[in-house]
C-alpha cells in the first residue's frame, strides 16, 4: 500500500522483540503490574534482608518472649523472643528461592523429556509416557515425602524433591503442544530446507509451544512456596532454626489459640506471594496469547 510512509531511504526497520512486546502488553494489565511489583518487592526484601531486618533473626531474647505486635517489635516475638518481622524478612530468602529453583528444575527437565517424547513420537514417546504415568499415579505429597526422606532434609534436596513431582505435568503439557504443532506446514518447510531436528525443536517448536509452560510455571511458583512451607511444617524441609515461612508456621502451631499473630504474619507472607505469582501468571497468559494481539 502506497499510503504507508516508508522510512527514510535505506533505513531498514529494526526487529521488534517478542519479549519487549509481551512486557508492553503486560504493563497494560493493572493486576499483573501489582503482581510484578509485589514480586520485585519481595525479591528486594530477600536480597537486602540484613539491611532491612531490625534484629538478628536467630537472636533469642528470653526477656521478651511472646510479645504482641508493638513499636519495638512490629510483628511481635516468638516463644524464645526472636523478632518475628526479622524472621519473616530472612524467611523470604529461603521461601522464594525454593519456589523459583523448584520451578526451574521442574520446567527444564519437563521441557527436555516432553519435547523428546512429543517430537520423536512412536516407541520413544510410548516408553517416556508410561514412565511418567507411573510417576503421576503416585499421590503427589506421598512422592514428595518419599523423595525428601530418601534425599534427606535441607534446602537443595527439598528443591529437587519438589521439582521431580512437577516434571511429569510439565512434560505432558509440552508434549501435547509439540505434537499439535509438529504437523504444521512450517515444520514441513523446515524439513525441506534441511533443518536439523535439534534446530527444528529449538528454533521453531519450542518458541511456538512454550507460552502455556511459562504461564503455568509462573503460577506454580506460588504453589512451591506453599509446598516448601508444608515440607518444613512436617519437618522434612529446611531444618530449624532456619526462618523459613513454613517452619515459622510449624513452630507457632502450638500457640495458635493464645498468640494468633505468630501464625497470621507468616501465613500472610505466603498468601501474598502466591497471589503475586498468580496475578503475574494470569497477566502473562493474556499477554502471550497471539489471538489477543493487536
Amino acid at each position, binding site marked *: 500500500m502506497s499510503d504507508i510512509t516508508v522510512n527514510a531511504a535505506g533505513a531498514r526497520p529494526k*526487529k521488534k522483540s*517478542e519479549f519487549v512486546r509481551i512486557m508492553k502488553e503486560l504493563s497494560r494489565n493493572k493486576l499483573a503490574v501489582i503482581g510484578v511489583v509485589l514480586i520485585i518487592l519481595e525479591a528486594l526484601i530477600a536480597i537486602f534482608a540484613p539491611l532491612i531486618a531490625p534484629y538478628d533473626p536467630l537472636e533469642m531474647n528470653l526477656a521478651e518472649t511472646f510479645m504482641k505486635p508493638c513499636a519495638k517489635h512490629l510483628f511481635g516475638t516468638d516463644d524464645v523472643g526472636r523478632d518475628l518481622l526479622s524472621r519473616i524478612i530472612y524467611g523470604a530468602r529461603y521461601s522464594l528461592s525454593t519456589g523459583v529453583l523448584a520451578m526451574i528444575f521442574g520446567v527444564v527437565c519437563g521441557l527436555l523429556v516432553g519435547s523428546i517424547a512429543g517430537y520423536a513420537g512412536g516407541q520413544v514417546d510410548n516408553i517416556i509416557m508410561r514412565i511418567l504415568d507411573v510417576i503421576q499415579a503416585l499421590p503427589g505429597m506421598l512422592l514428595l515425602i518419599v523423595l525428601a526422606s530418601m534425599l534427606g532434609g535441607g534446602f537443595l534436596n527439598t528443591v529437587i524433591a519438589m521439582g521431580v513431582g512437577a516434571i511429569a505435568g510439565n512434560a505432558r503439557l509440552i508434549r501435547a503442544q509439540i505434537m499439535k504443532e509438529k504437523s504444521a506446514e512450517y515444520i514441513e*518447510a*523446515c524439513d525441506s530446507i534441511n533443518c536439523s531436528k535439534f534446530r527444528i525443536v529449538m528454533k*521453531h517448536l519450542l518458541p511456538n509451544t512454550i507460552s502455556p509452560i511459562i504461564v503455568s510455571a509462573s503460577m506454580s511458583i506460588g504453589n512451591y512456596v506453599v509446598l516448601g512451607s508444608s515440607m518444613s511444617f512436617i519437618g522434612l524441609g529446611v531444618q530449624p532454626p532456619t526462618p523459613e515461612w513454613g517452619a515459622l508456621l510449624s513452630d507457632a502451631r502450638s500457640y495458635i489459640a493464645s498468640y494468633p499473630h505468630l501464625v497470621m504474619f507468616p501465613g500472610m507472607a505466603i498468601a501474598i506471594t502466591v497471589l503475586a505469582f498468580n496475578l503475574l501468571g494470569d497477566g502473562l497468559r493474556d499477554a502471550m496469547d497471539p489471538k489477543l494481539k493487536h
Partner: protein
Amino acid sequence: MSAPVIEVQGLKKYFSTPRGMLHAVDDVTFKIEEGKTLGVVGESGCGKSTLGRTIIHLHEKTDGKIFLDGKDISDLKKKELKAAREKMQIIFQDPYSSLDPRQTVDATIREPLIVSRRYTKAEIDEKVEALMDLVGIDARLQMAYPHELDGGRRQRVGIARALALDPRFVVCDEPVSALDVSIQAHVLNLLKKLQQEKQLTYMFVTHDMSVVRHISDDICVMYLGQVVEKCEAKELFRNPVHPYTKALLSAIPSTDIDNPNQREILTGEITSPINPKPGCRFAARCKYATDACHEPQVQEEIAPGHFVRCCRCHEIG
C-alpha cells in the same frame, strides 16, 4: 528437446492405516523437462499432494525410482539427501500455517541460507535483500511478522524461502487456492516470471482447472493415487479421453453464460483407496464400465505424448 530435470518411475507411496494399506500414490511415472510446468489435478484425497512431497523426499517412498537431472536419487545417504533436497523445494498451500508465526520475514528467508552453511553472514544479508526484491516484498516489511501480512504477501515470503537455495525443481502445492482471485493473479504471474528468469521446473498441484490450464505445459489427471490421463495442457482441454477427465472438465462451472457446460453428473460410490482391487478405480462411477475394467489397467499412448489409463479409451475417444 532438453533433458528431463525430474523423472519418476513407478513411484508408490502407501500409508498403513488401521484398516489396511492406503494407496496414496500408486505406480506413477512421468518426467518434466527443464523450465516446464507439469500440472497435477485431481480431487481431494487423490494423492496429488502426497506425490509432490514424496518426490522431494518429505515422505519416504514405498517403491519406485526418482531421478533428478538424470541422477538416481531414490535411495540416498543422509549427506547426499541433503544436497538433493536443496535442489528441490516446495511452496505450500496455506500461507497462514506454512510460516512460523514467531519468525520475522527476514528470519524465514534467512533460514535455508544459514542451514546450508555455504555463505558468510554478509553474503546472506545480501541474498535476503535480493530475494525480497525478487518476489516483490517491500524492504520495510523485512522485520514484520506473518500475522502483520496479508495472504498474498505471506505466500511471497514462502516463495522467497523456497527459492533461497536456487533450486532446480519446485513443487507448488496449491499455492493460490487460499487466496482471493485478485491476489491469486499476482502470485501466478510472479511464479511464471520466476520460472522464465531462473529456468525453474515446476510441478503444480491444484484442483482448480482454470489455474492449471493457465500455468501448465503438460497436465496429469490423478484419480485415487493413479494417473489416469497425461498429455499436453491444450490437448487435455480440447480432447479429453478418460471418462473421469471428461466428467471433471464438464463439472467446472464456466463463466461463459451463453454456452453452459453439458454437465456429466457422476453417480456411484467412490472406491476406497484402502486396499483397492486391481481394476480401474473409477469403474464404480464410470458410465462406460464393463467387465474388462475390473482387470488391471495399463497406460497407453493413444497419440504422441497423450497417455491414458483406460481399456476402453479407443472406443470412447
